[in-house]
């Protein structure tokens, strides 16, 4: 077995752990961190495939990072705004997404 195979298994595992974290935690910041983990798992996959399918795949790693940075900035800003209002970051207490 080559290193690529194991790396792909690793990335799938990390992605699944990230998913589990999003589902299990109530803290919005930690949910965000789990999402970052999932994004990085994708990066890992992209790098693995860049070895066989062409180096262009690594360019997308940068794009993913840029999106992650943008998402983190906006998401954290939202969390701060919400925190100012409710004094907490527990997503179960934010039920205003109704209607």
């Amino acid at each position, binding site marked *: 077995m080559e290193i690529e195979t194991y790396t792909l298994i690793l990335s799938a595992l990390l992605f699944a752990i990230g*998913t589990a974290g*999003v589902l299990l935690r109530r803290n*919005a910041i930690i949910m965000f961190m789990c999402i970052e983990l999932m994004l990085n798992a994708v990066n890992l996959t992209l790098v693995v495939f860049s070895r066989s399918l062409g180096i262009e795949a690594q360019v997308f790693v940068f794009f993913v990072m840029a999106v992650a940075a943008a998402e983190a900035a906006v998401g954290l800003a939202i969390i701060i705004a919400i925190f100012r209002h409710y004094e907490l970051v527990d997503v*179960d207490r*934010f*039920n205003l*997404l*109704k209607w």
Partner: protein
Amino acid sequence: MVNLLESFLRVAQHAEAGYHPVLPGLILLLPLLGFVINGLGAFLWRDNKRVPSVVGPLAIIGAFAIVVANFLAMRGAMPHDPAVVSLWTWMAVGDLSIGVDLQFDQLSILMMLVVTGVSSVIHVYSIGYMRADPGYSRYFAYLNLFVFFMLILVMGGNFPIMFVGWEGVGLCSYLLIGFWYENRDFASAGKKAFIVNRIGDFGFLVAMFLIFTHFGTLNFTEVFAAAPETLVFGGGVVTLTTLLLFLGATGKSAQIPLYVWLPDAMAGPTPVSALIHAATMVTAGVYMVARSGVLFAMSPVSQAIVAAVGAGTALLAATIATQQYDIKKVLAYSTVSQLGYMFLAVGIGAFTAGVFHLMTHAFFKALLFLGSGAVIHAMHEAYHQVHRHDDPNDMRNHGGLKNVMPITWATMWIGTVAIAGIFPFAGFFSKDEIIWSAGSYGYVVLWVVAIITAILTAAYMTRLMVLTFHGENRSGADAKPHIREVPAVMWVPLAILAFLSLVGGWVQIPDALPVLPAVDALHHWLEPVMEPARHVMMEHGFHQAHEAPLGGGEAAWAIISTVLALFVVVLTFRAMVHRRYSPAAESEAPTGFAGVLYNKWYVDELYDRVIIRPLLALWRGCWKIVDDGIIDGSLNALASGTRMVGWVGSLFQTGRVAGYMFWFVTGVVLILALLLL
């Protein structure tokens, strides 16, 4: 644009080169302008009565003056062909091109004279009659609008333009019948008139479609010129077309079976009854049949039906009129009856006689209505003074008004003898010509019916006069001293119309009458318009006898009829004048045959049972089953189904991020599973 302006302002030039319409557009523009000003006034200066009093009548008198100028110009030139003024193209679709054409020929000029002339008088009269009404400006706006549409009707150079006027006068009639719309009955009378007229208009419309399919044009001149070659004499097409046109005429001119709206139309102000529901609008059907004379002449079946319906209506309405107590109802049924006469005339092909009677009837019936208006006005004022709410229209409350209202009394008698057909008043000449035509053309039954109707007419009009003006006053001791003669602004129009009712018939004096000079002005005048129809009839075996069915010539029967009418008048007067009548409040409804007549042969009730109620039941069923059940039901089912789906969906919408996450991830897992496994 320049052409349009030119046609509006064109003045007669080159009289020697023929007839040119004088200021053709202005005739229409003046009443329209009056409508606009008074209509604005109804909103802007509601309480100002001076503006409508000046603008309303002046607009019509101005139009009348231009019409007189046109009449004089045409009399000088006496053109054989109609002068058509095309203002602009109204619509051009494929083969169909309809222009806003105004036709000036002898018939339309005559109608315009009658319309604007009688209208002018009635507008002046209205100043007095409507003086105290809060809707004064609105009234004159409607009245001006009516004259505008009536002029379009008679001036239109093609069927669609005529139809515009036809519908327009219907609209104004509706507006004016329901003028006092606060009263529920009056408003429904307006609706009744409108709906009944719609039935007739349907016929008119279909007839227009038929004419267009067969002629490819709707212009009067082209259709009537092409008719003898295009259509088969007595064929199905021409019969159907003319019958449909006649259906339109029965609606507008209140003939069997659509006459029921006219008596109810008396809910409007009395000058309106005089102008619209006696003198002008209701004669539109007669005008239309006379205008389409060529078509009718080509279909003996249609002619027979028109004449039969006319005669039947004349007799039926006359019998009803004998037992009515509402003074306006008597006159309304009298109008229906006289319109029946006119249809009898145009039906048998005596178009000129029909138009002649139309003209004289406009004079004396307007006079009678305005006279009754004067009586009602006086009675209303008197009751108003003593705060009583008795019916000022009911003749049982009148009586003995001769002494307090001498001018009204005298003019009304002139109108009565005119309508009764007594020499030398207008009605004698026109009615006699119709009766003589029916007899000499060989229509025995129609001739008999016409004579019986003439007798009935003399009888019920004398009854009206006796009940209203003679005997003792029954208005009550308190109200009696307050009854006064109407002001000059109201009796001067009466006098003018009385004069016309006297001399109006002298335009056409048969040469058979002894002593009198023979005058053939009307026949001569209408000759260019009526000649083609006459020609068609002559070609197909029409001939006029020189003797009535029972023998005797025209002069003999003229004398017989006038003596008969005079005899009936005197007899009725003497029989009724000394009888005592009780006021309306103390009277019982007539019984027996008189009761049947009093209840108008129960025709309204019959229509109610046979047509209105089944229709209502049908539509109620449609409403309950189709509308409520199927249409609303399916929509409601759809809506509640959507709501159910939404409710199920809303179960997922907890508003909690965790829930959304869970469903989102589960969804991704399921989709992946579907794709991969």
